[in-house]
C-alpha cells in the first residue's frame, strides 16, 4: 500500500507518462528483453540507444502493443500509461494506438493522397465531426509536422510522390493527427539524407512541447542532439538510464562507457 503510494507520488512529481515494470519479451523461446523497468517522462524526448539487435525496437513496440501483431512475440510484465495498465482486458489495442502514435524506420505513407494519409486515423477513430473539421485536423497535423507549406497546394497528390524526408514528415503528421500523447519513433531518420535528418530532428525538438517522445536511434550524436533522457540497452538488458548529458559525459556503467567510446559496436 505504502509502496504504491510512493510510486504514485514519484509519477506525479516527475510527470511520468509511461512506466514499465519487469517487462520481458519473448520471440518463441528466445528472450529479447530481460526484466526491463523504466519510467518515461512526459514532454521529454527519451532516446533508446544500443548496438544493433539489442532489443530497442522490440521494447519500443511494447508501448503501443505492436508486438501483439507478431505471432511469435509474447510480452510479460506491466506497462502503465498515465497509471493505467495497457494490457488491461478492457483496453483495446486499437484505441491505445490512437493515443500512442508510431513512426517507423522506413517512411511508409499509404499509397493514397497526402490528405487521406493524414485523415485516415481521425476517420477510423471518429474524431472529425464534419468535413470542415477533418480539413482542420489535417491542416493542423501537417503544420505541426512542418509539411504544410510544401503540401498545401497538392493535398490530392499521392503520399508516395513526396521525397523521402517529406514522406517521413507525412508519417509524423499521420501519427499526430489522432492527437496522441506519446509518439514512438523507431530510427525515424536512418533512411534519410543529412538535410532531411536535420529537419526531422528540429521537428522532434518542437514536438516535445506537447508530446512524450520516445526515439530509437543508432546514432549517438542524434541521441545527444535531440534527447533529454537516454536509455542504453545491451543484449536485451536496460543497462543504464539517465539524463542524456550524464550518460554521454559520465556514464556510471562500464558497458555504457564501452559503447559510448566505441568499444561495443
Amino acid at each position, binding site marked *: 500500500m505504502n509502496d504504491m503510494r510512493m510510486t504514485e507520488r514519484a509519477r506525479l512529481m516527475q510527470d511520468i507518462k509511461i512506466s514499465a515494470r519487469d517487462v520481458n519479451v519473448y520471440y518463441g523461446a528466445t528472450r529479447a528483453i530481460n526484466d526491463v523497468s523504466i519510467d518515461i517522462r512526459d514532454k521529454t524526448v527519451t532516446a533508446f540507444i544500443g548496438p544493433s539487435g539489442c532489443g530497442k525496437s522490440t521494447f519500443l513496440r511494447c508501448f503501443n502493443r505492436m508486438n501483439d501483431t507478431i505471432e511469435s512475440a509474447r510480452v510479460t510484465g506491466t506497462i502503465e500509461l498515465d497509471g493505467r495498465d495497457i494490457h488491461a482486458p478492457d483496453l483495446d489495442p486499437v*484505441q*491505445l494506438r490512437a493515443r500512442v*502514435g508510431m513512426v517507423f524506420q*522506413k517512411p511508409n505513407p499509404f499509397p493514397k493522397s497526402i490528405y487521406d494519409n493524414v485523415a*485516415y486515423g481521425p476517420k477510423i477513430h471518429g474524431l472529425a465531426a464534419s468535413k470542415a473539421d477533418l480539413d482542420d485536423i489535417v491542416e493542423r497535423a501537417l503544420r505541426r509536422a512542418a509539411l504544410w507549406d510544401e503540401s498545401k497546394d497538392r493535398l490530392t497528390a499521392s503520399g508516395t510522390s513526396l521525397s523521402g524526408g517529406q514522406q517521413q514528415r507525412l508519417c509524423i503528421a499521420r501519427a499526430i493527427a*489522432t492527437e496522441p500523447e506519446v509518439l514512438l519513433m523507431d530510427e525515424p531518420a536512418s533512411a534519410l539524407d543529412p538535410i532531411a535528418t536535420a529537419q526531422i530532428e528540429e521537428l522532434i525538438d518542437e514536438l516535445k512541447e506537447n508530446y512524450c517522445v520516445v526515439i530509437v536511434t543508432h546514432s549517438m550524436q542524434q541521441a545527444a542532439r535531440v534527447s533529454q533522457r537516454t536509455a542504453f540497452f545491451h543484449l536485451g538488458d536496460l543497462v543504464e538510464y539517465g539524463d542524456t548529458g550524464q550518460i554521454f559525459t559520465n556514464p556510471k556503467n562500464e558497458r555504457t562507457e564501452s559503447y559510448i567510446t566505441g568499444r561495443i559496436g
Partner: protein
Amino acid sequence: MSDTPHTAPRGRIDWADPALSERLRLRKRRQFWLKALGLGAVGVAALMLFVLIASLVVTGYQAFRQTHATIEVNIDPFQVDPANIRGGNFDDIIETAILAYFPDVEAPGEQREIVRILSDGAEFQLRDRVLDNPELIGERVSITVPLSDPYDLLNKGLIDRTTPEENRRLKDDQIARFDTLAEAGIISQPLNTALITNADSRFPELAGLKGALVGSFYALATCFLLAFPVGIGAAIYLEEFAPKNRLSDLIEININNLAAVPSVVFGLLALAVFIGWFGLPRSAPFVGGMTLALMTLPTIIIATRAALKAVPGSIREAALGVGASRQQVVFQHVLPLAMPGILTGTIIGLAQALGETAPLLLIGMNAFITSAPETPFDSATALPTQIFIWADSPERGFVSRTSAAILVLLTFLVTMNALAIFLRSRFERRW
C-alpha cells in the same frame, strides 16, 4: 602482424596467363551454347504456335463466308394466310421461285434436286421475314438464302470439278445446275453472320455458335460469381487471419493440390453431386459454371494469397500503427492494393475455365440443341463442347466451321489474357 602468411597478398592475376584465357574462352563458349539453346527453344515454341494458328486459319477462314442465292419470291396470299402466317406454305413459294430459273425441267425427281441446292433453312428464313413484316403478303420480294453445304463447298472451290465424277460429291448434272444459277448472277458469298447469330443445326450452312456463346457466357458468369467471392474470402482468411498450425498447413497443401487435379475428376464430382444428389438439370450452363467454379477456386485462392503476400508489411504496420483493426487493415489497405493481382489471377483462371471441355462433357453440355438458352438453367452447349460436337460431325461443312469456332474461342482467350497483362502492367507498383 600484417606479414603473417594469412594476410599477405597472394600475387595478382596475370592477364597474359594462357590458362586464364583458356578458362575465359570456355566460359564464353558455354554462354554461347546456353543462349543458342534458349533461342532454339523459343524458336520451336513460336513455330508450333505459328503452325497451329496457320492451319486453323487455312481451314477455318472459309467458314466466315457462306454462299447465298438471291431469289425473287412471290408471297401469294393463297399460300400464306395473314391470320396464320406460321402455317404458310413457304416451302412451295421457295420451290416455285428457284424452279423459275429452270423452266425446262419437268421431272419431279429433278425438281427436287434443284430445290436441294438451297438450304433447308430457306423456308424458315422467309417465314421469319414475313412474320416480322406481314405487309409483305401479296408482294414480290427478293430474299437471300444460304445454299446447302455441298453447293457452298463447290462455290468455295472445296469440291474439285476435275476429279472423276464417281469420286465427286456433286455429279456433273448437279454442277451444271449450279452453274446455271451462277450465270443468272444470283450467287453471292457474303460474310457468314449466321456463324454468330444462329444456334447449332444439323445443317452446316445453318449452324452457328450463338447457343455455345450464350452457354459459355452463363457458365463463366456463374463460375465468376461463385469462385471470385469464395476464393477471395478463403484466401483472406488463410493469409490474414488463420492461425499458422497443422490444420491450416493441411488446408494449404490440399488447396495447392486441388489446382493440379485433372478437370475430368471435377466433372465426375459435379455429375455425382450436383446432378445426382441435388437433382439439378443436365446440360445446364449453371451446373457447368458450378463445376468450373470448383476448378477455378484453387487458382483464385492461390493468386489472391500471392497478391496479398506481395503487399509490403510496412503498409500493414502503418495502418496498425494509427490504430486500424486487423479487419480495417485488410479491407482498407491490403485488399485494394492486392486487387490488380487478384483480378489478373481471376481472369487467367476464367480463361482456363472457358477452354475447359472434359467436365462439361460429363455433365452433358454436349447435347444437340438448336436454340440458344434463355436462362442459365436451360440446356446449352459451351464453346469448347460445341467444337467437340462439330469436330465429331460427318458433314464436310463442319470441318471449316470447327476451325472457325476454335478461332473464335482463341480470340476470347487471347483477349482475356491481354486484359490480364494490361491490368498487371497498368497497376504494377513499386514500393
